[in-house]
């Protein structure tokens, strides 16, 4: 059994079952954005929206794992002062990967990418029933100690235009498409 089959055993939600789990699919990888081609300042809105269901919120907390009842039990969450089941602080990761599959922002899926750390600001709690949109902006790219950093500013809005969060999404990437394609073959495509 391959690793994708092993992982399929844990897929429970509608979105998890529908999402394409193979990040080494050549046709998809060839369409990603690459560090040396990404245009800083370019703005777009992710074409896919994310309708928040309770099962999405619960699935993220389970995957941390974080067993605080505010993430699972609506009645308990209301007693604690919330409107309903609470979104785990890092739930936005699920939203980001769900909506940034192709085109602008697709570099977050890059084989060979490394995560140096992130900045997140929260403005309004995510709730069940929210329909979330991500606005993306090529924010910065830089070279430090031979590594190629990429940063996007992603702003999350609900269906009423209310800002939910602002994430400065940062990764260290292979520099070129050729480097990424080496990783596709299982070869190291990074600086030594």
């Amino acid at each position, binding site marked *: 059994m391959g690793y994708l089959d092993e992982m399929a055993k844990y897929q429970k939600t509608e979105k998890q079952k529908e999402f394409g789990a193979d*990040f080494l699919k050549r046709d998809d990888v060839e369409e990603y954005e690459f560090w040396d081609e990404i245009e800083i300042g370019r703005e777009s809105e992710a074409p896919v929206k994310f309708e928040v269901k309770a099962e999405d919120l619960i699935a993220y907390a389970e995957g941390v794992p974080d067993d605080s009842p505010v993430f699972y039990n609506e009645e308990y969450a209301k007693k*604690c002062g919330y409107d309903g089941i609470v979104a*785990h*602080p890092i739930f936005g990761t699920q939203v980001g990967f769900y909506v940034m599959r192709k085109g602008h922002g697709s570099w977050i899926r*890059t084989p*060979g990418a*490394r995560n140096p750390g992130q900045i997140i600001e929260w403005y309004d709690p995510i709730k069940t029933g929210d329909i979330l949109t991500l606005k993306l902006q090529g924010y910065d790219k830089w070279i430090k100690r031979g590594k190629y950093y990429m940063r996007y500013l992603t702003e999350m809005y609900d269906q009423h235009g209310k800002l939910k969060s602002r994430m400065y999404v940062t990764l260290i990437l292979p520099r070129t498409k050729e480097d990424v394609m080496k*990783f596709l073959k*299982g070869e190291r495509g990074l600086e030594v």
Partner: protein
Amino acid sequence: MMKRVTFESVNCGDVLSEVRQHVDQEAIWKHAVASLDYNPVHNNPEWCRTARVFGLPVTVMHGNQTYSLMCKVITNWAYHSGGRMKRLEVKLIKPVPVNTTCTYGATVTEKHPIGRGEDFVALELWAKDQAGELVGVGSAQVYLPLK
């Protein structure tokens, strides 16, 4: 009964209860499915043997899982009292290979009596592996109810 955490009850220097978590391949896969981050560096042991993204021939934990667990220190502490994250900044220092046990902790460093229901505290966060080496550091700001 968990003690209610409020802006008035918290002091600079308060140390939060630590979280400890062992991460094996199953835990990494579960996090990948939860976050939809299927990057092979976390999930595909065979690919990692040759691709060696971090110079290691094994899978590594998601960076997102590291700071999700750093946040767990805060959610355990304040969310039953109605606390809410305002800001998080995390720097990941070194990769966490599969089959590592990490410990996560935090200390209150600042109190911001803003009023208008927007009082918040700042915390320093850390994550260490089983050898006691830092794998991540950061800071967070958390809204707390006044009383």
